[in-house]
């Protein structure tokens, strides 16, 4: 469904990704783990075309999207809940969600809202509240909900549990499972390696802009190097 081939990405003179290749197949949950500054967010944002890869290819559903502008990539059936959630603080919860389905018809938007409110009953309660006034966990739910509004086939999640309380974290992971059961493929960037690998079919380990390991979720959980470096064992 999604293939990255030897992708290099630069921020000015800094090479943040040094020839990274990954593959995400339809129906999977694939996780990308790595330390702070390893390039996880860069990789995710390169898929979105912001920044664009300086070499290599990004292929989504057979189409080369490497050099498409971001807004065109994001209309091809993938959606992102980015680092820091990036809720529109002055827009209400409903308005934030509506922004997630900008090109949809009125009916599709109504259906999308209903779908998101069913997944996150909390958002329905808060529907007319401004996004910026909500708690971190609620904002994360809103960010995921907003990304689901466009009915994506591939969902990109960047550290959806960062800074949240343990109880909320397990709620978020439950939701990710539910989303996959509804037929959405999930690419999950996480620092919370333990829980991410538990729900993932496969995982990749990124170090200093290079992919150092890839395996199934259970194998990575059992891998000594991964345990030492990312699981604190």
């Amino acid at each position, binding site marked *: 469904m999604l293939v990255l081939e030897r992708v290099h990405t630069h921020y000015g003179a800094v090479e943040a990704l040094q020839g990274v290749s990954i593959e995400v197949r339809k129906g999977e949950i694939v996780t990308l783990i790595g330390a702070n500054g390893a390039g996880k967010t860069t990789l995710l944002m390169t898929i979105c075309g912001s920044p664009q890869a300086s070499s290599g290819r990004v292929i989504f559903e057979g189409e080369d999207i490497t050099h498409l502008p971001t807004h065109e990539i994001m209309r091809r059936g993938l959606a992102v809940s980015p680092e820091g959630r990036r809720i529109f603080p002055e827009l209400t919860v409903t308005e934030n969600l509506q922004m997630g389905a900008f090109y949809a018809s009125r009916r599709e938007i109504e259906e999308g809202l209903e779908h998101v409110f069913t997944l996150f009953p909390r958002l329905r309660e808060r529907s007319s509240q401004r996004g*910026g006034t909500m708690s971190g966990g609620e904002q994360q739910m809103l960010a995921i909900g907003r990304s689901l509004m466009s009915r994506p086939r591939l969902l990109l999640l960047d550290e959806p549990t960062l800074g949240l309380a343990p109880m909320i974290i397990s709620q978020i992971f439950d939701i990710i499972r539910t989303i996959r059961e509804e037929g959405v493929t999930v690419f999950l960037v996480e620092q919370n390696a333990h829980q991410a690998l538990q729900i993932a079919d496969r995982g990749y380990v990124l170090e200093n802009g290079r992919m150092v390991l890839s395996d199934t979720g259970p194998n990575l959980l059992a891998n000594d190097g991964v345990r030492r470096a990312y699981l604190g064992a």
Partner: protein
Amino acid sequence: MADFLPQFTQQLINGLSLGAIYALIAIGYTMVYGIIGMINFAHGEIYMIGAYVSLVTLTALGAQSGVPLPIVLGAALLVSVVVTAGYGFAVERFAYRPLRGGPRLVPLISAIGMSILLQNYVALGQGARDVSVPQLIAGGIDIQMGEGYSVVLPYSRLAIICVTVVLMVALTLFIQYSRMGRACRACAQDMGMSNLLGIDTNRVISFTFMLGAILAAVGGMLIGLSVGRLSPFIGFIAGLKAFTAAVLGGIGSIPGAMLGGIVLGLAETFAAGYMPSQYKDVVAFSLLVLVLLFWPTGLLGKSRLEKV
């Protein structure tokens, strides 16, 4: 003392209509600032172009007399709005967009260049001298205030106030409830995120410039009809005042631009009415300094809370 009320009423109408014009222009400044954080110093020229386009259209239509006045005015308004929106679009597309992402000073200099270019372009095409605008909305309401005093409220000034009120209400509803209005607000808050949601942010920016130009064009046409003369240089001072109004109300805030325009128009008119009229600009800009001293973000501006 007996002449207080008539004079006050007269000044009030003058002040409100002047303020309405400032508000119409100020919205263009504030919306563009809100969305891309730049001061479009060519916006005063857009207003001037709006006034000229309506004058040219009026002159062309006036040649065949016998056309009913509402149709003449409506046609002039329509042509002015469409053509001026085109100018607003073109200025952004060619003078600002290629420079986006660079240092903030660069588009500012480009804006000043654009302002000079447009002024001289109109001066070249239409002549640098004042031209007179036909007084199509003549007359006014004569109000007797007793003791022989009376006030005339010119229809042209009342038209400015009425049209502006209608446009402000329409704009507020549009920004609040329409899909494009929502996109404008979202882009103003987080352009990058809007882009990540599949929104072509360049189109939203172009739209903002065109919307600002439309309101300025309406203001330009109304002021031409009310004052009766135009010059290619009216945009400079009007733009400066409208910019002041936008800052006064809190730059980035649409209700702020409306309020700032009205406050500035009233302050200026009353200053000119009760003091030597040369003081009106002093009063206007002193007001700005005073407001910024006590409310650094303007009357309705919000201090941006940066959440870490």
